[in-house]
């Protein structure tokens, strides 16, 4: 039986109205759901015997949509682009799945698709939000498979078949293999090294000693020549660019220690250091593996575009009939029909009926804009009040959307490359290391040439940049974990350092400082009716409308509503009219309500009856609750703040004034935003950009640190260094404090590593350090660095407990 406490949709978690009547039967129990789509998804999941999904998931499912026609995916023209035919006759495709949130989702998808006859293989990648599907084209059509995904409530976007070559997956497999080889090699090498250390203390005959040295060499060979290969490649790259980074000292020290130890083994010299060398490789690879996993969570530009641009268009043929075709088949001059709520596939001119176009992600305009016959429509904008017909003018690479993507690409290339903190120190370290080794070799050459080689080797091992090379990655890995737990995903490792240095923040307005809702600002009664009365009438007229203004009216309306409206009729892009208690009312733009062209503000809508205007409603944007305290805290941390928006001057000024921001720029297109960024940088500011829209992508790509909101456009996230996955601006404040602490810990780590070397290298140069002491000292100094990094925690910057939204965060704790 339905429980009284359950006020949320069982499937998608949406809050239910008190009088919800829809229930789905799952696992023998009746559960409340919000809509037919969710009911169908819920019962289908239960029918497949997969109801366990609801127990295992830790994020609610996307709201299931009503059925969409997917049969167009079976067309040959589309299949050629999106499906790979394997030699055994089966077909393979890579599908980006919108709404894939947690491991339970991937479990559900794998099992639900396995139940579709003809599907041979499904592998879901939660981090990449992709599924690779192999099926038998004779038994099942692609549209059936996509339909199954859609019924579960996910939105499938097949990706171009080139994407089957998954670079991220290959990189991860490669790293995992190298890490394991280094780990096993390290264990073996240490085991044999302990025999040698014991032999040093208690005596060992030379033949046994040499035997264990040769075995040690044998197990270290794969570590150096396979596992450590990325370091040698990196060092070669750095050498070619004449810019020594972190890989150069690592490769140098590792190569010298290994070669020298091998020579010592061959000639029966004093000491070998295979254990130190392989431990060094293992610790470094571990750090890099963590960093790589973070990087792979970043949204790809390709994926972002796949979600933004529809793959299918409805073309009106010469005979007037509608046909579904792939967007790549469209040509300039075609006419396409775009349904209500669908995305415009190409730039063009609106023909026929007027509509609203939501371009907020593209232009920063906060409200859906009115488009009339003959107006421009841009690809990527969402139509409301459709269906509409568009005369296609520009396609693919020529659209405004593509131009923004190109601008972002250029900005990314011109972005100043701030060498990471560790990298700059590394250059000095290489020089110091080589000088110390050379000095030791020369000095011993004059004093006692027989000991020159072993003393130089000891210097190299002791000065081995283990603690040094770990000092930055250890602090970063810890900071990444702490930030991920708060819902801040750091996608580029040096973004943490840069965030701590930012002294100027540029905020986008629409969607960043405000959310997409509007709120009712005032009601001005123009006739004898009271404001509350007019509001109640307006709310009744807007019953069932999804327009943001309608929602604002409904939520502001008094509880004692007017009696229900009849004969409701909405005119797209204009307003609604209807009868209440026998009187005819019109609500909408002043032109629509009064039937004449007025001088009223565009942000107002009017209510009128047959005798004239009754009331004017003014709206304003809803500023995020945490925006004002977050901006105040950033200012207190010493950063200045500016708003850059594509919206109108009046709206930007209003938001700026309410948030106490003095400098702002309105009507800024992507190029103007970039200009402003360059201007600020020329004045020596270190600029962080916070944005969420596609129009922010170029300025994000060019920023010193780019921060995108989790709810924002994928294209913005693809160009960001940091994503606020929980969508709260106040986490930025905490993130900045944690970043500053991380920078401090890094400096301490490096200082400690240098101090350790400064003390031990002279001792090693004098030949006073036995190999076992060198090995222990190296481990202890590394341990000190790791322990110091653990001091980075989020206890001191607590603002409010936050829920982890995405369980695919590598470091996120599993919710109980």
């Amino acid at each position, binding site marked *: 039986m339905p429980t009284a406490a359950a006020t949320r949709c069982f499937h998608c978690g949406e809050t239910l109205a008190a009088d919800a009547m829809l229930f789905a*039967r799952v*696992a*023998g129990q009746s559960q409340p759901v919000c809509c037919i789509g969710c009911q169908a998804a819920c*019962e289908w999941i*239960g*029918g*497949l*015997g*997969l*109801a*366990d999904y609801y*127990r*295992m998931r830790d994020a609610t499912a996307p709201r299931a949509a009503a059925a969409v026609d997917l049969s167009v995916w079976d067309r040959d023209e589309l299949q050629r682009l999106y499906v790979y035919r394997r030699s055994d006759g089966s077909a393979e495709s890579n599908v980006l799945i919108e709404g894939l949130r*947690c*491991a*339970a989702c*991937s*479990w559900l998808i*794998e*099992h639900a698709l*396995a*139940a579709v006859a003809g599907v041979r293989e499904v*592998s*879901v*990648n*939660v981090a990449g939000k992709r599924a690779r599907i192999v099926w038998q084209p004779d038994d099942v059509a692609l549209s059936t498979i996509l339909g199954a995904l859609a019924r579960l409530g996910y939105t499938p976007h097949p990706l171009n078949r080139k994407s089957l070559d998954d670079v991220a*997956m290959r990189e*991860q*497999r490669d790293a*995992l*293999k190298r890490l*394991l*080889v280094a780990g*096993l090699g390290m264990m*073996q090498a240490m085991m044999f090294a302990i025999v040698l250390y014991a032999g040093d203390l208690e005596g060992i005959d030379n033949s*046994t000693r040499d035997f264990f040295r040769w*075995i040690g060499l*044998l*197990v270290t060979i794969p570590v150096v020549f396979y596992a450590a290969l990325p370091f040698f490649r990196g060092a070669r790259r750095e050498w070619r660019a004449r810019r020594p980074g972190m890989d150069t000292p690592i490769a140098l020290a590792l190569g010298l220690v290994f070669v020298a130890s091998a020579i010592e083994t061959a000639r029966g010299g004093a000491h070998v250091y295979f254990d130190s060398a392989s431990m060094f490789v293992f610790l470094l690879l571990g750090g890099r593996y963590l960093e790589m996993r973070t990087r792979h969570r970043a949204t790809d530009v390709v994926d972002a575009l796949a979600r933004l641009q529809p793959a299918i268009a409805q073309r009106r043929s010469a005979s007037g009939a509608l046909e579904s075709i792939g967007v790549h088949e469209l040509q300039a001059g075609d006419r396409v029909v775009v349904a209500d709520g669908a995305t415009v596939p190409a730039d063009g001119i609106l023909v026929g009926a007027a509509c609203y176009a939501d371009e907020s992600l593209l232009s920063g305009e906060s409200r859906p804009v009115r488009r009339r016959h003959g107006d421009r429509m841009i690809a990527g904008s969402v139509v409301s009040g459709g269906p509409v017909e568009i005369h296609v003018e520009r396609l693919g690479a020529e659209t405004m959307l593509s131009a923004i993507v190109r601008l972002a690409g250029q900005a990314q290339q011109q972005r100043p490359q701030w060498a990471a903190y560790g990298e700059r120190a590394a250059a000095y370290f290489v020089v110091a290391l080589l000088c110390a080794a050379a000095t030791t070799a020369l000095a011993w050459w004059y004093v006692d040439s027989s000991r020159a080689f072993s003393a130089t080797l000891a210097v190299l091992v002791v000065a081995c940049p283990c603690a040094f090379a770990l000092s930055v990655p250890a602090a970063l890995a810890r900071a990444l974990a702490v930030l991920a737990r708060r819902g801040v995903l750091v996608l580029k490792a040096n973004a943490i350092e840069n965030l701590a240095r930012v002294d100027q923040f540029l905020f986008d307005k629409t969607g960043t400082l405000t959310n997409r809702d509007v709120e009712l600002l005032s009601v001005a009664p123009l006739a004898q009716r009271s404001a509350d009365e007019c509001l109640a009438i307006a709310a009744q007229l807007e019953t069932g409308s999804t327009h943001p203004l309608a929602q604002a009216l409904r939520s502001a309306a008094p509880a004692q509503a007017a009696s229900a409206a009849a004969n409701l009729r909405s005119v797209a892009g204009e307003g609604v009219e209807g009868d209440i208690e026998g009187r005819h009312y019109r609500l909408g733009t002043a032109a629509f309500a009064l039937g004449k062209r007025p001088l009223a503000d565009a942000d107002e809508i009017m209510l009128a009856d047959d005798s004239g205007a009754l009331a004017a409603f003014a709206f304003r944007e809803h500023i995020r609750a945490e925006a004002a305290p977050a901006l105040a805290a950033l200012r207190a941390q010493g950063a200045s703040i500016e708003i850059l928006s594509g919206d109108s001057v009046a709206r930007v000024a209003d938001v700026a004034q309410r948030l106490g921001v003095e400098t702002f720029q309105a009507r800024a297109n992507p190029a103007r935003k970039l200009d402003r960024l360059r201007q600020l940088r020329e004045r020596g500011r270190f600029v962080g950009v916070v944005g969420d829209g596609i129009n922010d992508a170029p300025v994000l790509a060019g920023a010193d640190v780019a921060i995108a909101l989790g709810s924002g456009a994928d294209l913005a996230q693809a160009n960001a260094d940091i994503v606020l996955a929980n969508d709260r601006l106040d986490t930025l404040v905490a993130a900045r404090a944690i970043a500053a602490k991380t920078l401090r810990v890094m400096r301490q780590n490096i200082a400690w590593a240098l101090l350790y070397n400064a003390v031990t290298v002279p001792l090693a140069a004098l030949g006073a350090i036995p190999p076992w002491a060198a090995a222990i000292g190296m481990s202890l100094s590394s341990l000190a660095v790791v322990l110091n990094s653990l001091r980075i925690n989020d206890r001191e910057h607590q603002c409010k407990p936050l829920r982890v939204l995405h*369980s*695919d965060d590598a470091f996120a704790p599993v919710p109980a």
Partner: protein
Amino acid sequence: MTIVLLLIPLSLVLVTCAVWAFFWGVNHAQFDDLDTPALIPLSNDDVGLPRDATDHR
């Protein structure tokens, strides 16, 4: 001590086998998804079979 001459090569052979097995696993997608398999024991054994909603449980 001569036993060491047997045991050490033996351990190296075992390590080689372990590395080979791990590489096989990585190449066959055993380590690509480390999140989902943790949920499998929590589910019933009879999942994945298409059945009618009516005879469920």
